[in-house]
């Protein structure tokens, strides 16, 4: 056990899984960096240096830099997965799913079903989500609701270093295609992380904080915003139970329902879009399955329905903050 950043935890998880299973390969744009360039190899490890050192450790047969051809190398990764390799394919920014969407949602997600169960597709797609760097609307989205629309995929949204390492191990060991969504504003977050490998099962939400008055379901980076709000609300005597679903497919609806059945109130905090997003999905599940337990409207705290602006002041307005969560909690508590 030692303190590690989210970046280090993911890097360590990759290293350990690659040692554990020689069929794990890494593939993507500049996952090493320096291919053919004449200077240092293993120069980048991705734009955020998350995969730095892996080429040196595992060699070019297992760590492959690609051209900017996402559709081709995702297709290749699916084919390699169907052949028994366990590719970890890097999508850099999840927004680039635009150029390889077919591969992910029509091929990977449907491969096993459409062919009647003949195959397993143990593919992990690592990708960055989220706003906060001022890099505008084509590099800052949270697209896990879109991935979650498609049955056949599994979708993971670790909110901290500990979960990141453990969920990554599960993703790589899983026999289905998994989209592993790393929030780019969390790479520097530090937490105690075991040095040895461990796997956190999918579909098990984490109760980040206990509380009796209101259930707050928060996703990815928003877990920290929700916690900030919860600490502040505690001072007012309002007890918030904060739940991090950790995976959106499978979604641990039981834990959420169980909590709402105790608290009778639900606020959902998500950085993904408000329309057809995870916040709506979770609200709908509760409105159908735990309606009788509800004492108040279900409130969603999400960004507005807009593309993401580059300007830092507007981007800040875009991202939900603790103030908005507090307002929502006050509302469900009837203290407006």
């Amino acid at each position: 056990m030692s303190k590690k950043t989210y970046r280090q935890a993911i890097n360590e998880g990759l290293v350990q899984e690659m040692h554990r299973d020689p069929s794990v390969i890494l593939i993507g744009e500049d996952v090493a960096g320096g291919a053919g360039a004449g200077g240092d190899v293993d120069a980048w490890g991705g734009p955020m240096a998350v995969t730095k050192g892996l080429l040196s450790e595992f060699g070019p047969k297992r760590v492959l830099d690609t051209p900017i051809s996402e559709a081709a190398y995702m297709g290749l990764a699916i084919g390699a997965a169907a052949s028994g390799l366990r590719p970890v394919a890097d999508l850099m920014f999840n927004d680039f799913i635009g150029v390889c969407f077919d591969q992910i949602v029509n091929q990977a997600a449907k491969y096993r079903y459409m062919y009647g169960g003949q195959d397993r597709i143990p593919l992990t797609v690592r990708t960055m989500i989220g706003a906060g760097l001022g890099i505008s609307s084509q590099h800052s989205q949270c697209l896990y609701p879109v991935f979650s629309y498609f049955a056949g995929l599994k979708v993971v949204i670790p909110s901290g270093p500990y979960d990141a390492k453990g969920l990554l191990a599960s993703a790589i060991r899983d026999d289905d295609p998994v989209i592993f969504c790393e929030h780019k504003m969390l790479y520097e977050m530090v937490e105690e992380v075991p040095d040895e490998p461990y796997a956190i099962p999918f579909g098990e939400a984490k109760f980040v904080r206990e509380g009796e008055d209101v259930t707050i379901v928060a996703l990815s980076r928003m877990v920290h915003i929700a916690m900030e709000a919860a600490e502040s609300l505690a001072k007012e005597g309002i007890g918030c139970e904060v739940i991090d679903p950790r995976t959106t497919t499978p979604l641990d609806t039981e834990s959420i329902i169980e909590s709402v059945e105790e608290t009778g109130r639900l606020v959902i905090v998500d950085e993904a879009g408000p329309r057809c997003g995870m916040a709506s999905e979770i609200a709908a599940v509760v409105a159908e399955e735990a309606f009788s337990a509800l004492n108040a409207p279900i409130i969603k705290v999400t960004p507005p329905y807009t593309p993401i602006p580059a300007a830092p002041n507007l981007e800040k307005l875009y991202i939900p903050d603790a103030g908005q969560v507090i307002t929502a909690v006050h509302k469900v508590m009837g203290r407006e």
Partner: protein
Amino acid sequence: MDTAQGLIMKQSKTELLSAYRGMRTIRIFEDRMHVEFAGGGVPGFVHLYAGQEASAVGVCANLTDADILLNTHRAHGPAIARGADIFAVAKEIYCRGDGLCRGRGGSAHLHDVKSGLWGANSGVGSGVALGCGAALAARNNETGGIAVALVGDGGANQGVFLEAMNLASIWKLPVVIMVENNGYAEATAADYAIAGGDIHKRAAAFDMPGVVVDGHDYFAVYDAVLEAAERARAGHGPSLIEAKQRRYYGHFEGDAQSYRPKGEVEEYRKNRDCLKQFRQKVILDDLIATAELDAIDGEVGELIDRVYADAIAAPFPSEGEFMQYIYATDT
């Protein structure tokens, strides 16, 4: 070497008879499907391969068990050529419970892992990318296998196909790209949609060999694939083959085909037909007797009768199975 003698020096008589049987099997299977479709009872969209038999059969004659063939939506012919159980193929087309894909895929998605047949994909053009993956895995695992990706002239205009050509080339992947240029993508002519008209010329752009062959000539296809496959197996990287051919039926069943020039199909049937060409070539020196070929025709005819009777009688998938096979844990 254009005598039967010469041909038999390259492929054994058994191989040649098997190639003929393969082409005839596809032809009778597809002709029959055309009739059955018109009569109703075949679900979904059905794209027939009749006319193009020499292409898939010429490819598959070069493949081993370690190899992977990437199928297209025009899937019946390649599936039969690759040796997938023809009863299960028919049942899949009829969406029956014990079809190749347990009724979940249908005509355009014939896929049979145990015969080394992948796809088909109803989104055209992806085969090369998936094939690159099979090829990479074969190389990493040193299986000796290669991948051959079929793609239509239409599919060759998809970005993923072009990206994958580049990727296959820079990594020298053991993959053969077989463009089945049957002149049309749906109702649009290849000559209209392909800049310059020649798909094989795209090979040079991605630094790989590209050739064009008569896709109705089994021997021409065989030879081109042999060379490309050897290159791939030797670790020298990908090749592209453009095999010019024509389908005898519409894009899918129900297509009135008014876009085709009058007499086109008749002309191909008369002068270019793969079965006719094959027969002409192999009987030259009486090394293969007409009677032997005729006997195959008869056997295949009977087989296909049984295949259809069996498929039509087979039950649909059980409803309890509905949610099976989505995830690896749903067995």
